[in-house]
């Protein structure tokens, strides 16, 4: 960092309060961004990172009051700018990429028109020159058919593609500063990495500085030269990325670092004769769109999957979106009817006899991804956790009550939680309840479908740890479905990699992570950081490189 150059963006002592309650949401925050530099703001939800960044654009929600401090962009005070100057600054000098690619493009406007909007407003060029610029930019962000894209609507593109288009529309104006608010959080790991690389490449080429806002410390550390760590409105620590990672000073930074998933030593499982659950040649098909008179084409989501899960084993299924991993979980749980194949529980096919089916039904439970929709909002925690016990024969009401209390204590929500409703709990607490509900019958097999991907980093670490603890205590087998290889590395004994409804690679965790064979596995692995502890209590990140890394998805 060259201190002789004047900072491009200089935020000093910024304090924001919520108008009504007077709660401070951003407290005395100062940071600087120099031209061409990439700076990351890291924090969990509620840390004020998004508000602080939006204030740079002059976007402060009406309920929030500016209490003190200054924001200078290129030497000018943003807060003192006239609305006209502010509008001229937005877009042309400061660009912004939002988190949700599904909603940040106008769904009823052609891509070409949307991209043209900013150019026509801020640059004095004629239509042909603008068109040439747009086509060039779309080509650079990796669209296969830029001409065609001009006359397409946003819904015709995938999330990753839309985020590329969004990036193109911002970079067209060659802004001096790009604000990227969780630009890749909504994308899956592989696409996430491609989009980030593209962003870095484009901004480097145009000498654009980037303020990257994210909860993902690993990603921020990978791309940013400096990191600002925020916690509940305060900047707790800022400095060079390597320093923060290697020698974290503040306890919160250490907590964030230790919350990053890390590998535990491989476990030795006793050999068992029959796998607890075994899936043979499972095929799932979805009927195409049906009209009154026509039948759409059948879409095959799973092409003959076979999996064995040994007693006490945690098997992770990983893959990008559309790989069929969620369908696999749902069909094993009995939510989706398979078109072919067989599921055996303890060696007995469940489709053949009623007793085998009920034995399986009572022993197979599921934890869902979204803790906000997996709990019935009209039931109390106690009722929710007690519900599965209804079907257990020979249990007295007193037994049930005792069991519910026991399980709630196990998940760390003992006292007084039974009377509450789900909406009174945080996301992490809800997920604990979902886990409690899944294990209250003491099942021998649990399917966990992305159980931690909706949670904040430190909460995620806690829930994972709880899950691991309960798994060891009760010894249930688990099918752990996730797109996040970091999480998988921490919990899995064995890993199955899926792509397009097929298993492309499977093996013990250490083999998959240290010596991946399939190209897709390598690509997945390249998207997540590896961690090594350093003596000072910090970590060092390393990144695996995929072979044929240069090949871009188009």
């Amino acid at each position, binding site marked *: 960092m060259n201190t002789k150059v004047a900072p491009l963006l200089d935020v000093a002592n910024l304090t924001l309060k919520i108008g009504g309650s007077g709660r401070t949401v951003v407290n005395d925050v100062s940071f600087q961004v120099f031209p061409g530099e990439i700076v990351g703001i890291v924090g969990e939800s509620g840390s004020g990172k998004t508000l602080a960044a939006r204030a740079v654009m002059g976007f402060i929600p009406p309920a929030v009051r500016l209490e003190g401090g200054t924001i200078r962009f290129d030497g000018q005070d943003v807060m003192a700018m006239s609305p006209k100057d502010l509008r001229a600054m937005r877009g042309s000098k400061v660009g912004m990429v939002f988190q949700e690619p599904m909603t940040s493009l106008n769904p009823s406007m052609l891509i070409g028109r949307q991209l043209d909007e900013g150019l026509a407003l801020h640059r004095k060029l004629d239509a042909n020159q603008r068109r040439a610029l747009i086509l060039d930019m779309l080509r650079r962000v990796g669209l296969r058919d830029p001409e065609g894209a001009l006359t397409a609507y946003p819904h015709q593109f995938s999330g990753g593609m839309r985020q590329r288009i969004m990036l193109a529309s911002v970079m067209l104006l060659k802004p001096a500063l790009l604000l990227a608010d969780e630009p890749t959080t909504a994308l899956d790991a592989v696409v996430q990495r491609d989009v980030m690389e593209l962003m870095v490449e484009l901004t480097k080429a145009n000498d654009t500085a980037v303020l990257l806002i994210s909860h993902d410390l690993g990603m921020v550390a990978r791309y940013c030269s400096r990191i600002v760590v925020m916690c509940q409105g305060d900047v707790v620590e800022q400095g060079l990325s390597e320093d923060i990672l290697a020698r974290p000073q503040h306890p919160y930074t250490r907590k964030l670092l230790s919350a990053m998933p890390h590998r535990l030593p491989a476990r030795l499982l006793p050999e068992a004769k029959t796998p607890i659950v075994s899936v043979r040649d499972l095929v799932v098909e979805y009927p195409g769109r049906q009209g009154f008179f026509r039948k759409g084409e059948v879409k095959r989501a799973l092409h003959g999957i076979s999996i064995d899960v040994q007693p006490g084993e945690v098997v992770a299924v990983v893959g990008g979106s559309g790989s069929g991993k969620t369908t696999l979980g749902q069909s094993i749980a009995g939510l989706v009817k398979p078109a072919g194949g067989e599921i055996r529980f303890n060696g007995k096919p469940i489709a053949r006899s009623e007793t085998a089916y009920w034995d399986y039904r009572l022993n197979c439970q599921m934890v869902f991804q979204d803790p906000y*929709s997996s709990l019935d909002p009209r039931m109390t925690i106690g009722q929710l956790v007690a519900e599965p016990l209804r079907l257990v024969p020979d249990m007295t009401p007193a037994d049930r009550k005792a069991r519910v209390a026991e399980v709630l204590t196990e998940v760390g929500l003992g006292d007084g939680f039974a009377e509450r409703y789900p909406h*009174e709990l945080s996301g992490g607490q809800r997920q604990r309840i979902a886990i409690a509900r899944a294990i209250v019958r003491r099942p021998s097999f649990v399917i966990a479908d992305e159980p931690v991907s909706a949670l904040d980093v*430190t909460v995620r670490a806690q829930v994972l*740890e709880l899950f691991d603890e309960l798994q060891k205590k009760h010894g249930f087998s688990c099918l752990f479905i996730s797109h996040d290889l970091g999480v998988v590395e921490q919990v899995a004994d064995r890993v199955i990699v899926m792509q397009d409804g097929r298993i492309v690679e499977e093996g013990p965790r250490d083999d998959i992570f240290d010596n991946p064979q399939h190209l897709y596995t390598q690509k997945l692995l390249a998207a997540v950081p590896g961690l090594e502890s350093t003596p000072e209590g910090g970590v060092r990140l390393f990144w695996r490189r995929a072979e044929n890394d240069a090949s871009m998805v188009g």
Partner: protein
Amino acid sequence: MNGDGAMSSDSTLSTGGAVKKARRMKLPAPNAIVGGTLIGILLATACIGALWTPYDPLKLSFREKLVAPSALHWLGTDEFGRDVLSRLMAGAATSVWISILTVTLAVIAGTTIGLFSGYMRGWTDRIIMAFNDALLAFPGILLALGLLAVVGANKYGIIVALGIAYTPSVARVVRGTVLSLREREFIAASRVMGNSEGFTMARHILPNCIAPLTVLATSMFGYVLLAESALSFLGLGVPPPAPTWGNMLAGSRPYIGQAVWLGIFPGLCISLTLLGINLLGDAVRDRLDPRMRGSR
């Protein structure tokens, strides 16, 4: 680290919970008080009106026709010298009773159809909903008129006709709610638990339909009261001389120039009842939904 992390987040939350508990003890919302009072008065009037009225609501007295409100007749008398207050009280009993039964009929029938249709989906759903939409295409009052011609114009005819006329809209609302609910993960969770479809519907889907149903039922109560009045107004309602608010309003029309109270008082009763019901409906919905508790 798991332990202390959980503790810290739990402790902040339990104080939040305590605050919410304290708020729950607060006075009911103003709309509940006003709505409750209005409906309370209505119900009390209807109950008293069914048993006792100051004068016989049917007794004709040609010497006293079209008397303005006075100490003897608080709300005046009509063209046949019948006491308006007595007729309003007796009419309240009839109108409220008809509305309650009609709404109950429509809600039960509509909920059953909607639940079934939404949960089954596929062809069952399509056929039921096509039929339902065909019924919805008729204005409720027109449908009721047609049905009344079949079942006959009397108190129970009105209930059946209006009940059937309002069933499709309930079915639509319930089906829509069921469709969105059944995609939620807690329904999948219930199935994974091994609960039967019927239990899942009764335990998880039906209770979550109550909030929209309450709102619909209260606004429907108002519509039915109006529709019943309109039918009576058109002469197809409860046959005279039995008083309802609708036929009183209808009967006042020729005398609007000379005896304004004949129209004003039944009209006022209808408006105030509708206001009360809508206010109370909102309050009940907020109360029934655990998410809304404590947020006021």
